[in-house]
């Protein structure tokens, strides 16, 4: 008689997050310290997000700090940074989790030390944080990317997906929604032939793109829901004979993609504004510390003039992504 998965399931039902009561009218506290812990420091995407958080905190009269590992797969490094922030007794931390489970013990430890925990960009298990600030609803992202590409290829032909790591939580959810979207009859002439993984590494994504094109000579389009992947794929396409013939879309930053939009490799792609994401994470953290919210479904709070409502499992959504193309791309700089 050992312990199996079933036993564990039975024993650990219920027990969700956060007790206490929200007071929507409580005063916003000042002089707090919020620690940002991105998946990786020096990652341009997270740097813009955290900069957004920094600006928002300044506005709210609180202070900001950033710590984090220098590698996006150094989960143990991230755990020890959670510990560090706990030791330093910050008031709240905003975390983008490399792994949904690995941070749990440490985050719970932090919460039991009266530190509010907000996840942003990448969530952990719901019971390990107070709230999750989502960049856009996963459903929106998945479906719109398919819609973008379908338009570009005239609703016809073979397409493929170039994702990040096989374990990337976000990407996997989005890809599920993409597949769901493709079930709609209007896409009946589109065939998803393969999901490839470039591990968010420029060179691997590059070679995966090559492989896709060699394996499927009739490929018409590629969706790459990762900023590293789309950039590598664009760079490969723009230097190959496939430039302009194979369409590419996905999630990218305007600065990365400007050149490829201008030289005709890419028609359009999308992304949310990472700075806004970071700002919202900061605002949520402050609201949590101030007691304006506790993270329960249905609570509302105001941030930067907009009102947000907490959804199921403590998820707060930023809104719809922006589509960038040759017409509007010069208006953005991140």
């Amino acid at each position, binding site marked *: 008689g050992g312990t199996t998965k079933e036993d564990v399931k039975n024993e650990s039902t219920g027990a969700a997050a956060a007790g206490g009561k929200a007071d929507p009218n409580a005063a916003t506290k000042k002089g707090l310290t919020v620690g940002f812990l991105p998946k990786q420091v020096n990652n341009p995407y997270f740097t813009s997000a955290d900069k957004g958080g920094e600006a928002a905190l300044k506005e709210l009269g609180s202070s900001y700090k950033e710590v984090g590992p220098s590698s996006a797969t150094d989960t143990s490094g991230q755990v020890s940074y959670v510990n560090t922030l706990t030791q330093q007794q910050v008031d709240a931390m905003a975390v983008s989790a490399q792994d949904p489970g690995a941070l749990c013990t440490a985050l719970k430890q932090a919460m039991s030390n009266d530190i509010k925990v907000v996840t942003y960009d990448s969530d952990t298990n719901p019971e390990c944080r107070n709230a999750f600030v989502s960049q856009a609803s996963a459903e929106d992202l998945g479906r719109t990317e398919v819609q973008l590409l379908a338009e570009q290829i005239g609703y016809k032909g073979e397409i493929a997906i170039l994702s990040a790591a096989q374990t990337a939580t976000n990407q996997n959810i989005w890809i599920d929604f993409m597949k769901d979207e493709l079930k709609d009859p209007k896409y009946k002439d589109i065939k998803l032939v393969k999901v490839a993984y470039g591990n968010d590494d420029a060179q691997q994504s*590059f070679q995966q793109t090559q492989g896709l094109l060699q394996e499927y000579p009739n490929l018409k389009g590629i969706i790459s829901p990762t900023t590293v992947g789309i950039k590598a794929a664009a760079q490969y396409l723009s*230097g*190959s004979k496939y430039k302009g013939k194979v369409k590419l879309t996905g999630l990218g930053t305007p600065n990365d993609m400007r050149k490829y939009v201008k030289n005709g490799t890419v028609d359009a792609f999308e992304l949310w504004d990472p700075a806004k994401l970071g700002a919202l994470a900061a605002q949520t953290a402050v609201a949590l510390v101030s007691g304006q919210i506790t993270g329960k479904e249905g609570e509302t709070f105001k941030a930067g003039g907009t009102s947000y409502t907490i959804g199921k499992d403590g998820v707060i959504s930023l809104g719809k992504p922006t589509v960038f193309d040759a017409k509007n791309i010069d208006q953005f700089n991140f």
Partner: protein
Amino acid sequence: MTVITPNQAPAAEVPKSSGTRLVDRVFKMRELAILVVFLVMIAVTQAGNSEFLSEQGIKDLLLNATILVLVATGQSLVVITRNVDLSVGSTLGITAFAAGIYLQDGGNPIVAIALAVLLGIGFGLLNGLLVSLGQVPALVVTLGTMYIIRGIDSIWVGSRQITAADLPGGFVDFGSGGISAVPYLALIALAVLVATAYYLKHFGSGRELYALGSNPEAARLAGIPVRKRILAAYTFCGALAGLAGAMYLARFGNVDSGTGNGYELTVVSAVVVGGVVFTGGSGSVYGAALGALLLTSINSVLPALGVSSVWVMAINGTLLILAIAVDRIVALRVASALKKRNARHA
């Protein structure tokens, strides 16, 4: 004086069994085993996917190998002297960024390349000085400088990045352009490779690298300037890592603080697969280059055959082991065959 009579080698000078000698040579060439593995792999892939060896396909294969070939060439020189340079990945990253920053501000591509090479030389010198003057184990020192350079790189680069849009169009086009299926970058790498191999074989200082890797103490007694040679090998390795950095920039048009992280293992793999022995003194840069070609090609072959990327890593590792094992078994066979034939009967 340039009149050359073809085939004037006097037949009498050739030792008795020139036939078997040739066979020996060919068999002793450890590179051959890798070449065979490589060709078989390419042939199988082509059979499974006729697009593979299209003009674009060949170009991609060559381009992918180029950067690794360069770095592996430099690394071989160091490994031949019984040392190792683990900092090449970090050097590649930082030089690529330096060249990129310079180009971003409207610099001249040639100067940018020179800059990258010079920076590489600087780091090579640092490693070389530590290893040769400090006389400390290369593995530790270069693991240390790997961390140091990587750290400096990421502090300096921060979250900045160089993208293709920042670079002169000509530079980026050069990175992916070529003469039909042969990319310019591959031509440069080939030139470097051939020159290095020629130097190693035909110049005294080149042979001395082998000598001091083979037996450092004997090298000292033979009056070989050991420290100077080791310093030179590291400097050359650094220079090629710098050149590779510039090429990386041209090829991928994209450099950030993570560029080159973990590259050292790939380079070491290529060198080892290529038959350059870690205890120094033997191996050739051609072998290392073939090793690099083999390793990068595996990464193109598997997707081209439609192998799910889930399998890629496992297959990669298995092939790596297979390559060195086959190489080793062939070498053992040949050695025992030679021994039986050569057994001295004075």
